[in-house]
């Protein structure tokens, strides 16, 4: 039999062992829980990353696949392109070949004669007949009707994901390969002059592909066409090549369609615009009547800017050329009649200046955003 001291020692020894064992068990449990939490966090992070990657950007329709950064790249690329177009640097023959090899949604027949390609989304086949002038082939991505920028203007032919039978562009010529949700199908047509390869996948897949294409394009911008209106940002202006005699400006509306303003909106002038801007697609172009040429507005803007620089217009806080309004917008801090008359005196034609009383020197940010026209 143990005496009380031995029993006490035994009990305290057992207690120490028990506590150590419990501590080890607690550590194991904590490690297991930490591991589970880490895995959960990683999974959540990955999921969020995937979601963010696949989420459409603001101002774009869900079918658009570019991130904001990529859009900036493309805009920059477009500016370079416009600049190179002006210099006549465009390699008109080579981009058609580019389209053959790459799955570049941007290389939409930009340079080949009448070999445009359009990316649209939806299942609207009714517009096929409107692809009149060129060999325009349109394909779509996914089934989101909002992606179908061609729908808004009533122009365009679309087919939907997995429905190649809807690629009924009877008036087109070209081999169009549509990759739709992993099911590669080829819609071969006669009268081929060029081949355009298009990707049609779901939104996430298209993101990746388009991004990859953009990177490729940015590396070799010389031979790259820039039309692809679906990839432009709404409200973008100035990327088209102006035709000065009747050119009133251009911008992209919120549906991704180019809006071209012409002082003389005639079929001949329209044809000239398309000839001058081969990347422009009729199905995605809207013509509007303009009151003033862009050249006049630019000149007027320059005069006003110069006057502001010389401190001749103290009540003018800023001025901007608004292509969508086809006006020069002058922001004034006061309604001083003399200042208004002086500003209007620069406008020799009259009515080309729109005066906005901002009330303060600091303009609202919203005032600086050029808003697309509403129809």
């Amino acid at each position: 039999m143990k005496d009380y001291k031995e029993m006490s020692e035994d009990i305290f020894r057992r207690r120490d062992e028990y506590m150590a064992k419990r501590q080890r068990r607690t550590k194991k449990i904590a490690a297991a829980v930490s591991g589970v939490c880490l895995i959960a966090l990683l999974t959540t992070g990955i999921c969020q990353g995937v979601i963010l990657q696949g989420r459409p950007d603001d101002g774009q329709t869900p079918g658009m696949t570019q991130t904001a950064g990529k859009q900036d790249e493309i805009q920059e690329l477009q500016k370079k392109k416009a600049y190179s177009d002006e210099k006549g640097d465009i390699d008109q023959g080579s981009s058609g070949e580019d389209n053959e090899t790459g799955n570049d949604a941007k290389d939409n027949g930009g340079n080949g004669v009448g070999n445009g390609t359009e990316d649209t989304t939806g299942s609207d086949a009714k517009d096929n007949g409107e692809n009149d002038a060129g060999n325009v082939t349109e394909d779509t991505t996914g089934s989101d009707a909002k992606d179908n920028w061609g729908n808004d203007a009533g122009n365009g032919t679309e087919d939907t994901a997995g429905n190649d039978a809807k690629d009924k562009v009877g008036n087109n010529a070209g081999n169009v390969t549509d990759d739709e949700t992993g099911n590669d199908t080829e819609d071969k047509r006669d009268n081929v002059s060029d081949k355009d390869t298009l990707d049609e996948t779901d939104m996430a897949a298209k993101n990746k592909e388009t991004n990859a294409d953009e990177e490729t394009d940015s590396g070799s911008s010389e031979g790259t066409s820039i039309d692809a209106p679906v990839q432009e940002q709404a409200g973008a202006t100035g990327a088209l090549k102006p035709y000065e005699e009747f050119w009133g400006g251009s911008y992209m509306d919120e549906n991704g369609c180019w809006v071209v303003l012409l002082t003389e909106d005639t079929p001949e002038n329209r044809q000239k615009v398309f000839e001058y801007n081969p990347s422009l697609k009729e199905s995605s172009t809207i013509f509007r009547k303009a009151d003033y040429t862009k050249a006049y507005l630019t000149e007027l803007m320059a005069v006003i800017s110069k006057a502001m620089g010389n401190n001749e217009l103290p009540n003018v806080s800023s001025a901007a050329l608004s292509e969508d309004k086809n006006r020069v917008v002058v922001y004034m801090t006061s309604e001083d009649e003399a200042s208004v008359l002086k500003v209007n005196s620069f406008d020799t034609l009259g009515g080309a200046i729109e005066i906005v009383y901002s009330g303060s020197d600091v303009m609202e940010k919203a005032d600086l955003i050029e808003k697309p026209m509403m129809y």
Partner: protein
Amino acid sequence: MDNGADSYRCFLDGDDIGMTEIIRDYKDGLILFLNRYVHNIWTAEELAEDTFFCIVIKKPRFSGKYSFKTWLYTIGRNLAVNHIKRMGRVNSTDPEDLEQMAHDEKTLEQSYISGEERLLVHSALSRLRPEYGRILYLKFFEDLDNGQIARIMKKNRRQIENMLYQSKRALKTELDKEGYQYEGL
């Protein structure tokens, strides 16, 4: 509040000496009481150690509603009942150890129970029904009142009174066989 409660409070305050004092004061009586359940002094000793170990690890709350001994013996009884349920009543002691076990039990009795007369009564309890032996042990050797015994045995006071009456009669009969008269009966 008895010394056990003070010692337990010391232990809860972090002083292991408090638990050592509790073991010193209550070990032998608890072993003898648990021996009434398991009929094995070594197993009873293990159960007593487990009782103290349980208190050391879990540090259960002592309300002071009953005496510390009542509280401690209640815990010990619960462990003994669980042990019986788990192990059964089969005595797995090696026959060679029986002599040593009997010697240990005798030694413990002699150290805990003072007086030849009380030792004789204690040995007579082993010949009674186990329930009678437990109640009489708590009554005569632990000096607990009926309420405390009822608490430990998980019976009501009325039941304990009846059982005490019957157990005393049984003990008296047993002592009469040996020609011994115990004044407490």
